[in-house]
């Protein structure tokens, strides 16, 4: 890696101040993507602003609306341990990476990175969660803007994510054999007012909602409601692990499985 300075502020306000000092300054969450990137010299920040010392963005609680509120600096392991009221979210967090990743990686870091194969984006989008930042609240539908792109401004930090708890939910992850990221992951969440289906890993545009499936499931929450439905292979990622057609096929298979398992 290239040489850099590191700061470890203890408040969100201090972190934001440091980040806004220069475009070359970079927030560091759990470092599960950024540190390998630095090691490969693919990034050269002047100052790394380490968020791990900010206690106010750690932990899991429940708000008055019954939402599970997870601090942006909470590790996947702590998300799994603290989100018992939302079993599908627990399962998802428990199956990210390996124990080392889960003990370092954070929900805020994952969402800010918005890797097209990451799991959290599917959970946030399917849950209709709200992303709280150092500046504002962003609805899930407004947050994800394509592969590695989000609505976050420079220097804006995710401080909390608020998950409404669905009546039923399930996450199906089909692992890419090498990285064990989602080759395709489908998160299905059934609420009183409708069903949300979010798909990660598949699209060149990053996580997306499969609205056709949502409508079908809204009327009849059963796998058979999805018979004959499919997403087009166009626009799906095609790489050495699977063609766009294969990924499109998996979207249907996994959505059905998620509904059955919910």
């Amino acid at each position, binding site marked *: 890696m*290239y*040489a850099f300075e590191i700061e470890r502020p203890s408040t969100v306000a201090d972190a934001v101040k440091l980040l806004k000092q220069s475009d070359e300054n970079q927030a560091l969450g759990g470092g599960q993507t950024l540190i390998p990137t630095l090691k*490969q*010299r693919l990034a050269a920040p002047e100052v790394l602003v380490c968020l791990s010392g900010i206690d106010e963005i750690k932990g899991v609680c429940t708000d008055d609306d019954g939402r599970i509120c997870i601090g942006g600096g909470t590790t996947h392991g702590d998300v799994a341990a603290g989100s018992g009221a939302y079993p599908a979210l627990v399962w998802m967090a428990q199956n990210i990476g390996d124990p080392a990743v889960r003990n370092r990686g954070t929900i805020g870091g994952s969402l800010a990175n918005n890797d097209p194969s990451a799991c959290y984006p599917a959970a946030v989008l399917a849950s209709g969660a709200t992303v709280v930042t150092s500046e504002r609240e962003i609805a899930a539908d407004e947050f994800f803007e394509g592969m590695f792109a989000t609505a976050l401004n420079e220097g804006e930090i995710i401080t909390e994510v608020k998950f409404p708890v669905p009546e039923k939910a399930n996450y199906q992850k*089909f692992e890419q*054999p*090498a*990285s064990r990221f989602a*080759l395709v992951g489908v998160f299905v969440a059934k609420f009183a007012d409708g069903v949300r289906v979010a798909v990660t890993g598949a699209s060149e545009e990053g996580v997306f909602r499969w609205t056709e499936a949502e409508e079908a499931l809204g009327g009849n929450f059963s796998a058979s409601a999805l018979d004959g439905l499919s997403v087009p292979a166009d626009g799906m990622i095609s*790489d*050495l*692990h*699977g*063609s766009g057609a*294969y990924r499109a*096929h*998996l979207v249907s*298979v996994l959505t059905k499985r998620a509904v059955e398992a919910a």
Partner: protein
Amino acid sequence: MPKDGGIGASSKRREDVRFLTGAGNYTDDINLRGQAYVHFLRSDVAHGTLNSVDTSAAEGMPGVLKVFTGADFAEVGGIPCGWQVTDRHGEPMQEPPHPVLAQGKVRHVGDPIAAVVAESREQARDAAEAIEVDISDLPAVMDMKEALKEGATKVHDDLTSNLCYDWGFVEENKGAVDEAIKNAAHVTTLELVNNRLVPNAMEPRVAVGDYSRGTDDSTLYTTSQNPHVIRLLMGAFVLGIPEHKLRVVAPDVGGGFGSKIYHYAEEAFCTFAAKKLNRPVKWTCSRSEAFISDAHGRDHVTKIELALDADNNFTAVRTETYANMGAYLSTFAPSIPTWLHGTLMAGNYKTPNIYVNVKAVFTNTVPVDAYRGAGRPEATYQLERVIDKAARELGVDPIELRRQNFITEFPYATPVAVEYDTGDYNATMDKLLEIIDKDGFQKRLEDSKARGKLRGLGINCYIEACGIAPSNLVGQLGARAGLYESATVRVNATGGITVMTGSHSHGQGHETSFAQVVADMIGIDESMIEIEHGDTANTPMGMGTYGSRSIAVGGSAMVKATEKIIAKARKIAAHLMEASEADIELKDGQFSVAGTDKSVAWGDVTLAAYVPHNYPLEEIEPGLEETAFYDPANFTYPSGAYACEVEVDPETGKVTIERFAAADDFGNVINPMIVSGQVHGGLAQGIGQALLEQTSYDADGQLLSASYMDYAMPRADDVPFYQVDHSCQTPCTHNPLGVKGCGEAGAIGSPPSVVNAVVDALQRAGHDVTHIDMPLTPSRVWAAMQG
């Protein structure tokens, strides 16, 4: 009853204590006073003309001692190839130069262009970024068949084409084979790819070069499976340093699998630069760098035809293989698709007519050489796949088809130039069917169906040629080295023994199993014996460890040396007891006079050898130290039968291995636990090849699977609990221990049974799928099911 020591005992691996407690001494643990660090600037294009390398900016960077380019190596030799293959027409293979640092052209992504030596690793890396390289891109030569077409871009401009050799084996068989295929009642044809693999030893390669100005001695610490071979190749052919001025040390080495056999440019560089700069120079390979600089394995494209008569007897096998050499010839590369592959095409079967054609091709990829099994997995895979396909085409049981064609009488001379000494293929097949519980398969199939899964059973046999190798034979075949092994047994005054072996242990457990042999021969405790290896300064010239040769060849040398020790010790004992040497018996570490109660202990004899106050000095010299060199009379031929049971998810194509059984005949077994461990590791690698490991280059020669994000190594949950058995033992007839070797069997025997099992599962479900190329990733299996 299991033994508690000596040959046949499952003694715990003594070396594991240091490996597991962080007390090992790996090459990267070696740091010398005044050490500098090298960073290699590697080509990021697959093929191009190297117009210029401007190092001026880099030379002035902080901490930089010197920047080397190809021009600095004009005075030394290139990296040599250790094997010459003669083609079908009696001509030698085309052998291109392989400079330490690129000269004139770059030929694969990862080809080293320049090397920066600096005070720190990061400074070297910083300076490497300041080197200005001007390369004119050339089209990348990637597809082997395209590479051989008239007018194809050449990887090496000075060669006549990209063809290294066109090898026919046995050329004289060709007419008879063609005739047998023409007259066959049935011919089964299969075209397949044996996928390229990246070795991925847990410990990446490391080299530390050191030079003593006072004595003009050079030392290289390196991650090698054969330090003497490196000393010979690098000293004699690259740098011109005679052996007595060059010491090569390979201390603890964390896995090799073939990839640490070869002499690599980085080793020569560190040794060369240490002398130039009068500073120790260290290189530690990163994992990313390993993907593009460690020699890869396999990469064959093959068409195989199996001819049968009306009674389903095999009458002929004919193969045509394109074997990828990569951009340069690695140390053993030419021998892998030829002598370690063609000679095994008879497999376990009495096929009378066999002809193997191999075209070795240069491409703009990382060089390819031996990887666990080396040629034998490629032979086994194609043969065992085509037999399975033939059974399906003929509607006969694949097990019975194999049994019908088994070789059952030994010794057996194959039509491909080797003679199997022993074997019992029906015995291992019988054992296999027992341990896989074939009778229970139907029930398990029903259970899988009930869960919506497809299930399949695949079996195969294998044979390998190990105990490499008879020197006079391999010399005729083009080897530029002998393949004997050596050992020195040094008995110390108080009876403890230090064995210095030319074999090298990099995970195999020699320190334990070799000690068991000597302990057993003398009848003393294993703890009295220490096994040393890996340092050319204190071990006799040996050829190292690969080709499942250590116990069969290195162990035999050690047995011979120990026999000399015992013979001399008997003379000393006879003298001490004033008895006739003919009456001396050795049992449990005691020498006794037959028929009397007179005895002396091992330690009394050894002390007398070094304190010869009462000693037959007129008859024998003092001391108790013997060296032996052993050159095997033949290869050994381990064999066995493997079975794999898979489940396939019909919706996703995902394959899971539910059961895997291996019944091996390794001859006599020294340490059953270590042997099981060797089989387990080999199976994991074979299953990795069959299901997971996908080396993928794009058309421009960029390695797409260049990290663990895209290259899938097998993990614990990818493999089942194995059923392994090595109770079927037909001892080798020509080495003193009757051993055959076990290191590669798992990797050789397992890929075909995995693929056979998946094809079986799909066919049982009504899919007309006869073959899928490895790795059988979910997407490939799903695509095959779509038709």
